[in-house]
């Protein structure tokens, strides 16, 4: 695709700078701003653009009065310049390696060793649970001690409580979210084809994911690129909120105060703001952070592409904001938010204990709450 001023409305930028104010990256990274990037592109082309500071979190798009699709623009520039610009390889490349090994089609399919005896799964169900990369990330980030498979287990528990027996997809691969946003389109296409095949083979109607990145990719990006696959995608928080509403899930409210971090893929990218909040309010008192909903600040990294001292600074700022609400715990609905924010808490360096606040995944908290009364 040839990028020009018409692409993604970039040429209609009026230079108002709302985006730069909304963008968490440009608050801390002096050399990057969405407006500056758009201007640079219009005047000088894409040669000197900073490709990797943008988190594609979508805050800029929300405030833009001219409808500039900045995140998609950034993705397209990355795709275009992939050959000449050095791609980011954080964590010594393990995340990329997992993705591209998955995309090579090797291996006889995922082993589901996280599944325990007491879970009810049903091979012929038309509801599937999309596992995603969590079991692998659990190994990679084991020193952070975020129990990522615990999120999967809680999701299955919640579904079982609601009387849903999900199946797992045979031949499931990485959803390709990271590949898509980093502009690795050949990897993304291969992964997507394999997943669509797996979905087609199993004839499922509903796919439930625990990770907003998966639900956004499967639910919006696949249909955009490959046409409607005839399935519906829901994040576990949406399902659980329904359960709470119609009474199949009964949570007990306690005195605790929680605050909630909107994951960008669930909030701004998929428009799911209320459902996770319903869950949180069913568990305790919800106290919002100053920046919430459409204007929530990103957890600091997408696709594991940005992780440096600059990102750490705003993660600390976000965690302080959460602590400032006086909440007992910070809830989120995204495993990646859990990873990035607990990493920031672990390596707070000279920040002493300022950013410390317990982190919790909404589905884990809900499952714990229900289990407690059994």
């Amino acid at each position: 695709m040839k990028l020009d001023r018409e692409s993604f409305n970039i040429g209609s930028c009026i230079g108002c700078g709302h985006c730069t104010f909304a963008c968490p990256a440009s608050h801390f990274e002096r050399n990057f701003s969405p407006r500056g990037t758009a201007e640079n592109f219009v005047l000088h082309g894409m040669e000197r653009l900073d490709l990797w500071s943008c988190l594609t979190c979508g805050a800029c798009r929300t405030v833009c009065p001219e409808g500039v699709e900045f995140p998609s623009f950034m993705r397209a520039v990355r795709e275009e310049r992939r050959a000449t610009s050095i791609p980011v390889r954080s964590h010594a490349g393990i995340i990329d390696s997992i993705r591209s090994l998955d995309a090579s089609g090797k291996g006889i399919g995922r082993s589901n060793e996280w599944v325990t005896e007491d879970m009810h799964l049903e091979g012929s169900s038309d509801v599937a649970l999309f596992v995603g990369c969590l079991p692998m990330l659990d190994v990679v980030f084991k020193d952070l001690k975020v129990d990522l498979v615990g999120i999967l287990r809680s999701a299955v528990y919640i579904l079982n409580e609601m009387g849903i027996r999900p199946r797992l997809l045979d031949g499931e691969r990485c959803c390709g979210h990271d590949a898509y946003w980093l502009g690795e389109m050949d990897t993304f296409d291969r992964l997507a084809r394999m997943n669509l095949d797996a979905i087609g083979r199993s004839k499922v109607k509903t796919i439930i994911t625990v990770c907003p990145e998966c639900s956004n990719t499967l639910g919006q990006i696949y249909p955009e690129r490959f046409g409607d696959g005839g399935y519906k995608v829901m994040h576990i928080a949406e399902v659980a909120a329904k359960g709470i509403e119609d009474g199949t899930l009964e949570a007990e409210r306690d005195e605790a105060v929680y605050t909630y971090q909107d994951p960008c893929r669930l909030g701004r990218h998929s428009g799911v703001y209320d459902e996770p909040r319903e869950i949180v309010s069913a568990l305790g008192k919800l106290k919002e952070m100053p920046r919430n909903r459409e204007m929530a600040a990103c957890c600091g990294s997408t696709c594991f592409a940005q992780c440096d001292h600059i990102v750490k600074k705003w993660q600390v700022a976000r965690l302080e904001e959460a602590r400032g609400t006086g909440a007992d715990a910070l809830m989120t609905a995204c495993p990646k938010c859990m990873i990035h924010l607990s990493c920031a808490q672990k390596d707070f360096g000279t920040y002493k204990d300022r950013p410390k606040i317990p982190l919790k995944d909404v589905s884990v908290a809900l499952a714990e709450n229900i289990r407690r009364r059994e």
Partner: protein
Amino acid sequence: MTWEPTIIAFCCNWCAYAGADLAGVTRLQYPSNIKILRVMCSGRVEPGMVLKCFENGADGVMVLGCHIGDCHYKIGNRKAEARVTDTKRLLALMGISEERLLLKWISASEGALFAETGRDFVERIRALGPLKGGFK
């Protein structure tokens, strides 16, 4: 054409690589399937590197270093041990047999052991067959 396994052997500079050298100098026979990659220490081998090998056509990967206590960088091979354990878990989760990854300590004087390890590993991979996908 019959299939021949492709093996990548990460050898640490100070022991295993010298061991491989010795095997060559003493004219011991070992299969030509083994492609040696020299690293300064077995602790340098990251899970990502091993997965990359599998992605790009390796059927088996060996990580060879100094015996515990002999590492030139003191604890590099301890790190290698932990990393290989993690990598094996990752492989198992992704549906690749952990048999395809081997960690072994070979000192600079053990040329015969290098040749033998190589021969055994090639046979093991031959028995496992090429690394293929289950769902294409």
